[in-house]
Structures are given as C-alpha cells and as structure tokens.
C-alpha cells in the first residue's frame, strides 16, 4: 500500500519484524497460555487423554496371549496400543483450540491485539503441544508400566526371551518417547488443518479420516505394492512405526523415518494453515 505525495513524512516503522519479533512472540505465548488455562474444558480433555490411552493399553495387554511357540506380538507395541484412542482426543483438543476462535468471532479480537499472525499461530502451536506432551508422557508411562506388570502373565515370559518392559532398554525407550512425540505431531497436524479450514467439524473429520481410514483401506487393499506405499506415506501408519521394537524389517518403514513422515505432514499442514491465516481476512 503506497501513499502518493502526502505532506507528512511517515515515521519509520516501529517494530521491524525481526527486532520486535521475539517480544511479540513472548506476549503471544503469554496470551495464548492464558486462553488455554482459563477454559474449564482443558483440564478434563487432558485427563481424558491419559485415561483413554492408559485404559486401552491395559485392555490390549489383558487381551494378548501367546499361542504355543513364539509370541507373534511386539510387547512394547501392544502396551502402547492406547495411542490409537489418545490421538483422537489430541485431535479434538488441537482443532478446537484454533476453530473456537473462528466460531465465536474472537479471531478478530486476537488479531487486533496481535497483528503478527504467524507469531500467534506459533504461540498456539507451542501452547497446544506443551500440555499434549505432558499428558501424553503420563499416559505413555502409565501404559508402559501396565505392560510391564501385565504382559509377563500373558505369555511374554523370560522363557520365551521376553524381559519385562523396561525404559532402560533403548528400543522400549524409543517406542515410549516416540509415542509422546507422535501425539505432539498429531496435535500440530490438527492445528494446521484447523487453521486451514476454520470449521471444527470439518477439521476434525479431515484429520481423523486421514489418520484412521488410510490404514484400514491399506490393510484390505489387495495389491501389496499400493498397500505398502500407502503405509509408508500415511501419517498414522508411518508415525506409529516408532513403536516397533521387534521384527523391524517387516515394518513398512523404519521408526525414525516414519516419525519424519508424520513430521512432514504436520509441517505441511501448519505451513498451508499459516499461509491462509496470513493472507485471508480474519
């Protein structure tokens, strides 16, 4: 926007993007954190995350049994089954954090108070990820503990070569920490999609569809080529490869590469969401 031939000289723009960037990010973080902590539903959602994840993991542990011979299941993966349900709660949480501003019209207040929209999106991302990681860590720890206690009684005995789950084992630690990272990335993916489509139901449906449906379709698609590629590229199947501690070679993708794929999805969602947030009218 140029101003042609006005008498008054314009002041030098105060707060050049880089100089004031950090301060405005800090303020945005403070504001977004306040928003989160002053909503009564937040605490319940995080509690639900822990309960649902640990609960489903316990169910999976209790239902596993080894037929005679070798156990075909991966103990760490079984004990972390709850992530399938926990991620749905993370999606709900992250989507609502963004879309509730649009549905109430508060987004204009937010952007009037903090015109640097990218900073606001970054602050929202940080403020959503923090609690997800914290609650997710509790949930994962609970799940691993449950697996440690329950699985040996269901056939995962030392005689078959399975030691009780121990976080000191590098693969188990990777599976557990990776699961927490997985939840955080799902949250970021949800936030990006929410910023892109701005409607709660649509965003939740899109993300959940992307997560849940692809593996179902891949599991029953006949062609191994197509199914395999799908599982390598889909956010959930790739991301959950981090949980594998046995038979790594038969996984569609290696653990860290899988998390990388999910991270790429989250980054793409946030980038497109961020572009939309910046360019479009509030």
């Amino acid at each position: 926007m140029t101003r042609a031939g006005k008498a008054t000289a314009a002041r030098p723009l105060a707060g050049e993007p880089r100089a004031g960037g950090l301060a405005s990010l800090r303020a945005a973080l403070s504001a977004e954190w306040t928003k989160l902590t002053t909503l009564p539903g937040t605490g319940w959602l995080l509690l639900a995350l822990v309960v649902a994840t640990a609960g489903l993991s316990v169910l999976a542990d209790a239902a596993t049994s080894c037929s005679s011979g070798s156990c075909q299941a991966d103990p760490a993966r079984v004990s972390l089954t709850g992530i399938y349900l926990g991620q749905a709660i993370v999606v709900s949480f992250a989507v609502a954090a963004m879309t509730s501003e649009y549905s109430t019209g508060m987004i204009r207040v937010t952007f009037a108070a903090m015109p640097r929209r990218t900073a606001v999106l970054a602050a929202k991302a940080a403020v959503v990820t923090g609690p997800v990681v914290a609650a997710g860590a509790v949930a994962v720890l609970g799940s691993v503990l449950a697996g440690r206690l329950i699985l040996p009684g269901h056939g995962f005995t030392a005689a078959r070569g399975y030691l009780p789950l121990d976080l000191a084992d590098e693969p188990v630690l990777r599976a557990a920490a990776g699961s927490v990272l997985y939840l955080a990335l799902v949250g970021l993916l949800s936030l990006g999609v929410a910023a892109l489509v701005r409607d709660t139901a649509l965003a939740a449906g899109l993300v959940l569809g992307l997560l849940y449906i692809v593996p179902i379709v891949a599991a029953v698609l006949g062609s191994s080529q197509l199914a395999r590629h799908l599982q390598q590229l889909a956010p959930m199947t790739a991301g959950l490869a981090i949980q594998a501690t046995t038979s790594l070679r038969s996984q569609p993708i290696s653990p860290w590469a899988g998390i990388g794929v999910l991270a790429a999805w989250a980054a793409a969602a946030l980038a497109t969401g961020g572009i939309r947030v910046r360019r479009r009218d509030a």
Partner: protein
Amino acid sequence: MSEATIEVTGLRKRFGPVLALDGMSFMVTPGQVTGFIGPNGAGKSTTMRVILGLDAAEAGSALIGGRRYQSLRHPLTEVGSLLDAAALQPSRTARNHLLWLARSQGLGRRRVDEVIGQAGLEQAAGRKAGGFSLGMRQRLGIAAALLGEPRVLMLDEPFNGMDPEGIVWMRGFLRSLAAQGRAVLVSSHLMSELQGTAEHLIIVGRGQVIADTSTPALLAAASGDRVSLRTTATASATAVLTEAGGSVTSAGLAALSVTGLDAEKIVTLLSGQGVPFSEISAHRASLEEAYLELTRDAVEYRAADAAEEARR
C-alpha cells in the same frame, strides 16, 4: 501530525460482487469525538477492519500516527477497538477474557482490574461471558478497548442494545475520553445516538465519504431552519416575506412555512407591515434530518415507505 491521528486514503475493497469500499478517505483528529455515520452497508465496519489490519484492502492506505497497524508493537496500547461485543468464548469469565488480552500486550492483572472498574463491571467480572446481557457485553468490549490506555479508540456501533441509562453513560464517557486528548471514532447508523456527543461527523454511503464536517457546520448547511407561522392573512404575509428574501410555502389552511429568514426578522417584518399572526416558532433542523437528506441517495437497503405511498 499527532500520533493519535487516523488517516485513511483511497481505500477500495470488494467482497465478491459487492463493492464495499470505493475510495474511502478521511482523517480523524484527537481531542474530539468523531461520528462515523452511514446507512447499513455503507462500509463503516469494513473500514474499521481495514484500519485494524484484519481485512486487506485492494487499494489505498490506512495509517495511525503515520504508521500501519501491523507495525505497531503493542497495538492495543495505541489503538483500542470494539468491533463485535459478542466475540467472546462463552465459557470463559469476563475477567479472564480481559486477562489474556492484557497479557498479549505485556500488561498485568492490575490493569485488568482498573478497566473493570472503569466500565462498571465489578459485579459481573467473575461470571462466564456466555451469560452476559447485551449491555454487559458492550461494557466488556469497552473495557477491552481501554486496556492499553490507547490514544486512539474505534468503536463500531457501541450504542447497540444499550438501555437509556447506558446510552447516557456511554455519551459522557466518550466525551471525557476525547477531552483527554484521544481520537475517538464512533460509528453508528442512528443519528440520534450521536447527537450531542460527536463534534465532528464523517458521513459515508456506498463505500464513499459523503460529508466530512463539524456538526454545527452540517446543521447550518442543512436545509432546515424553518419557521412555522400561523396567520389568517396568508397572502399578505407571503408577499412581505418573499420580498424580504425568504421562501414561503403553505403548510395548511392558515399556516405558512418560511425558510431563509430567522424568526426575529420575520416578526419585525410582519409587525412593520401590520400583518397579523398568531403563532411563530423556529424549527431547527435536527441532525437526523440533515443526515437523511444527505444520504437519501446512498441508502442501500430501503424498506417500502408506506407513509410516502399513502401521501401520493
């Protein structure tokens, strides 16, 4: 130019097929309340959103103190705004709503409590915003606008839904804010609300500025200032007054309506010529009439005027 000046130049914006802003240009100076008036759909809210950097204009510029809104470091400390009082999360308390806003500008709880007192929300501050009445939501919006003690205030239809007591309070409040040296821009589509409050008026219609004057000047320029005269000698009265330069129209059986001459002059003229009359009253143009006349052509949405139909 003072830091507290809003300067809008040549804004143009289209929403699909509708041209909302068509070269909107004006200036708002501090120390007075500026009324931003126009019919529905004239582009008032859109202009405010463009100034706040919420909507992007296709052409033109909007500057505050010579700077763009996006470049302001803590915008709410320079420009306070109230666009939509209902833009609240229903399950959050009023105090917490102000709290997150305050923190976004690096302010703290103390300031929140101050504005709560200023807006008269002490009783309701701890309640969820979803249960607020219309008037309380407006007060909350005002409180939010004042958080940063800004030098510029932009309020979009703040009188909406206020009861008479609230309107009186609001008028006094706005005047006092302006008296403190702030620039206050208040939009409305009802002239009666701004009567006695706004010293300067910007009248818009169809995305453009129609008039940009001080209130007295507008009143003076309006074709008002009629004098109503009751007399049986209508013919002679008409002759006398017309010769003196006024224009006279009949207003009934024994009544005349005179423009162009003030009441005292008419009394002098008629008495001097011995024309009897029984009643004379000066009729000042109201802001409402002035405004209606100006915007007659610019009204976007017009309901069928039943009275006009009946008169024909």
